[in-house]
C-alpha cells in the first residue's frame, strides 16, 4: 500500500465500509436478473454521487474535490473487492476528456453535473472486437450547424446509461493514421443515435451504439486529437487496473481462507505444499501488481513523462494477476468453485471482461515496447 495522505486514508476507509455494507457481491447477483440492462443499481449510484466520488478527479472550480487519480483508484480498488458495479469509471474518464481538452464553456456546462453524478458519462472509442484506438473509422463531417457523425461503436462501457458520450471520430485521413482524430461530446438523447444493450458474461452494462447522421454543434468538439484520446484512455486504464487489483486481492483472500478451513486427508488443504507454493506465487504477483498500479496512478497525478509506460505496465500486471488468481480461485475450491452459487465464477468472468476493456495484455505489452523504442 502506498503511503497515503490523511485525505486519501479517509476516502479509502469510507469507500471500504460503504462497499462492504451497501454493495457486497450479492448486489451484483441481483443485477443479473434485472431487465433494465443498465448493469448497475441507480440507487447505489445516487449514493456514490452524494458521497462525492464522481467528483474526485474534477477540479474544485467545477464542483469536484480534485483529490486526484490515486485517490479515485483507492475507491475503485475497494469497489473491485466486491465486484461493485457503477458508472464511476466511465463517468470519470469522460470528465477527464473535458478537463484535459475542453473549453471553459464546455467545462462549465458539463463538469458540475458529472461531479454530482447527475450526468453519467461514457467513452465510445472502439469499433471492432479488439481495442484499437488507432483504427477509428467513425466519420465526422462538417455541416451547417457543426458536425455530422456517421458510424458505429462497440463495447461502450456503461453505454446504455450514459447521458453524455465522448465519441472518438475521424475528421480526416484513413483508419490507421494518427492524425485526423477528434473527440466529440454527444448527448445521449441526440437524434440518430441508437443503442443496443449487450448482455455480458460479467453482468456489467455495455452497449453497441450506432450513429446515423447524428448532428452536433460546432462547440461539441474537444481539442487535442489522438493525444487527448490517449491521455483519457490512460486514465480509464489506470482506474480499471486499480479495480482489477481490488478484485484480485479479494479473490486471493477468499481462496486463502478456504485453504485454511477446508479439510481433506485429515488436514487443512493449505498445509499441502503444492498449494502453498501456488498461493505464495499469487501473493508475489499481487505485490508486483499493486506497485505498478499505484505508480501509474501517482504518475497521472504528477503528470510524469513516463505515465503512459506505467499505465501499460499496470494494466498488463493487473490483467495477468487477476486471471491467475481467479483461475486458482476456482481450482482451489474444487467442485464448489464450479458452482453458480459460489463467488469464484463471478471473479473469473469479471477478469476476462476487464481484460478486454481499454486494451488487454497483448495490446499493452506492445505499447510498452514501442514506448521504450523497440
Amino acid at each position, binding site marked *: *500500500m*502506498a*503511503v497515503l495522505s490523511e485525505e486519501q486514508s479517509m476516502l479509502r476507509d469510507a469507500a471500504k465500509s460503504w462497499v462492504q455494507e451497501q454493495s457486497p457481491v450479492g448486489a451484483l447477483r441481483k443485477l443479473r436478473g434485472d431487465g433494465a440492462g443498465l448493469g448497475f443499481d441507480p440507487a447505489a449510484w445516487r449514493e456514490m454521487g452524494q458521497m462525492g466520488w464522481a467528483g474526485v478527479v474534477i477540479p474544485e472550480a467545477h464542483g469536484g474535490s480534485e483529490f486526484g487519480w490515486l485517490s479515485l483508484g483507492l475507491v475503485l480498488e475497494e469497489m473491485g473487492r466486491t465486484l461493485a458495479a457503477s458508472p464511476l469509471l466511465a463517468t470519470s474518464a469522460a470528465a477527464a476528456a473535458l478537463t484535459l481538452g475542453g473549453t471553459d464553456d464546455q467545462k462549465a456546462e458539463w463538469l458540475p453535473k458529472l461531479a454530482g453524478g447527475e450526468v453519467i458519462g461514457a467513452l465510445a472509442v472502439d469499433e471492432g472486437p479488439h481495442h484499437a484506438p488507432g483504427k477509428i473509422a467513425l466519420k465526422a463531417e462538417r455541416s451547417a450547424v457543426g458536425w455530422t457523425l456517421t458510424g458505429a461503436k462497440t463495447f461502450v462501457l456503461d453505454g446504455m446509461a450514459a447521458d453524455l458520450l465522448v465519441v472518438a471520430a475521424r475528421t480526416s485521413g484513413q483508419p490507421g493514421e494518427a492524425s485526423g482524430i477528434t473527440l466529440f461530446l454527444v448527448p445521449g438523447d441526440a437524434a440518430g443515435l441508437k443503442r443496443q444493450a449487450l448482455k455480458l458474461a460479467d453482468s456489467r452494462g455495455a452497449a453497441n451504439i450506432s450513429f446515423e447522421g447524428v448532428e452536433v454543434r460546432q462547440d461539441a468538439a474537444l481539442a487535442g486529437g489522438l493525444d487527448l484520446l490517449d491521455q483519457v484512455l490512460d486514465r480509464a486504464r489506470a482506474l480499471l487496473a486499480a479495480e482489477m487489483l481490488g478484485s484480485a486481492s479479494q479473490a486471493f483472500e477468499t481462496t*486463502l481462507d478456504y*485453504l*485454511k478451513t477446508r479439510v481433506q486427508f*485429515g*488436514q*487443512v488443504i*493449505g*498445509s*499441502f*505444499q503444492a498449494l*502453498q*507454493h501456488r*498461493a*505464495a*506465487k499469487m*501473493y*508475489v504477483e499481487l*505485490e*508486483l*501488481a*499493486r*506497485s*505498478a498500479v*499505484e*505508480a501509474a496512478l501517482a504518475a497521472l497525478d504528477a503528470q510524469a513523462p513516463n505515465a503512459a509506460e506505467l499505465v501499460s*505496465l499496470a494494466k*498488463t*500486471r493487473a490483467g495477468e494477476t487477476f486471471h491467475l488468481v481467479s483461475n486458482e480461485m476456482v481450482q482451489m475450491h474444487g467442485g464448489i468453485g464450479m458452482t453458480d452459487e459460489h463467488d469464484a465464477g463471478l471473479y473469473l468472468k469479471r477478469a476476462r471482461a476487464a481484460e478486454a476493456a481499454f486494451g488487454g495484455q497483448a495490446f499493452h*505489452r*506492445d505499447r*510498452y*515496447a*514501442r514506448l*521504450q*523504442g*523497440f
Partner: protein
Amino acid sequence: MADFGASDLDAFRTEVREWLAANYPPELRDGGAPTDPEAIWGGRRFEGSDDPQIVWMRRVAERGWTAPSWPKEYGGAGLSREQARIIEKELAAGGYRVPLASFGVWMLGPVLLEYASEEQKREHLPKIVRGEIRWCQGYSEPGAGSDLASLQTRCEDAGEHWKINGQKVWTSYADKADWCFCLVRTDTSKKHEGISFVLIDMSSPGVETRPIRLISGESPFCETFFNDVLVPKNNLVGRVNGGWDIAKRLLQYERQNISGGFGAGGGAGGVAGDLAQVAKDYVGTDEEGRLEDADLRARITRNKMDVHALQLTMARIAAEQKASNGPSAVTSIVKYAAASFAQERSELMVEAMGSQGLGWSGEGFSPDELRATRGWLRSKGNSIEGGTSEVNLNVIAKRVLGLPDPK
C-alpha cells in the same frame, strides 16, 4: 539521525557529486587501466597496495562512505538512509566503480551492530568499512543446505578457546577471505537452540579450503575444513546457543542485498546493458523500429516489465518500511521474484546474441559476449544461493500467509 529536508538533501547531493569527481583516481577514468579483479573485495593481501581500485576504496572509506549509514564511532559516516541512497545513486550515475564489494558491509556488519558486544564492534566494524578484512560466510554444510539448522560443525569448550571441527561447503571466496562468520553446533541435544555464531580467522592453524569449479567454469566457492581450530572465547557473537536468531537475521540482509543487485537488472551473473538494445543490435529491426523477431520481442518485453514492476515494488517496500527497522519476511518475496527475472534476463541475453552468445573463450567473441555466456550459467545459482526459491516460497506461505505445516 538528523531529519533532513529536501533542500538539505539537494545540498548533500551536490557535495557528494563534487567530492566523487575530485577524488576518483585518474587511472580509473573512462574504462581505465585494468586493475586486479580481486581488488574490489579488499582484504589483507592488498595491504600497502597502490592498485588504483584500492586507492579509490581507501579514499571513499576515509569518509565512511563504504558503509554510510553505520555510526561514526565504528568507521561509518552516520548518515540517514536518504543520504546513503544519494551516495549509491551518485556513484552509479557518474559511472564510478563500486569502491568496495563486501560480505562484511552487506551481511555481517548489520548483525554485529544489532547483536555484538561493544568490544566486538570496535574490533571488526572499522576494518570492514576500510576494506582491510575480507569476510566469507560459513553456513552451508554437506548435510545442511536448505535445512541449515541441521548443521554439525562442532564447537567445544577448550578452556581459553573454542575448538572447532567440521566441514562447510559452497563457502564463496573462502580461499580468498581473511575471516569467516560461521555457524557452529555448541549443543548436540537441541537443533535450533544448539547453534552459535562465531568469527574465525582463516589463517588459524587447522583451516583448509579447496576450490570447487562451477558450471560457468569459475571457481568462486570452496569446501572449507576445520580441524581442531582454536578460536578465542570472545569471538562468539551473542549468547552461546543463541546463534540461530543472528543467523536468520543475517539471511534477511543477504536476501535483501542479493535482490538489490537484481533490481538494477544484474544480479550475480547478470550482464550489464539494455536487453532490448542488445537484441536490436544482434537481431535487427523492421521499418517501424520494432525488433524483427516478434516472439523474442514479446518475451523481452515481458521480462523488462517484470523487472520494472519489481523495481517499483522494492521502492514501495523501502518507502513503507522507512519507519520500521531493517528487512523482514517480505525480503523473501523480492528474492524469489528477483531470482527468476534475473535468470530469464540472462537466458534472453544469450538467445538474443545467437551463436555469438555461445562463446566459451578465445577469439571470435567480444568480452561482453563471453561474459553473457558465463553469466547465463552463473545466474542459475540465483535461485539457490541465499535460500532457494522453494525455501523462499515456504517462508512466504508460512510467515506472510499464515499457512500451516503439513501433519
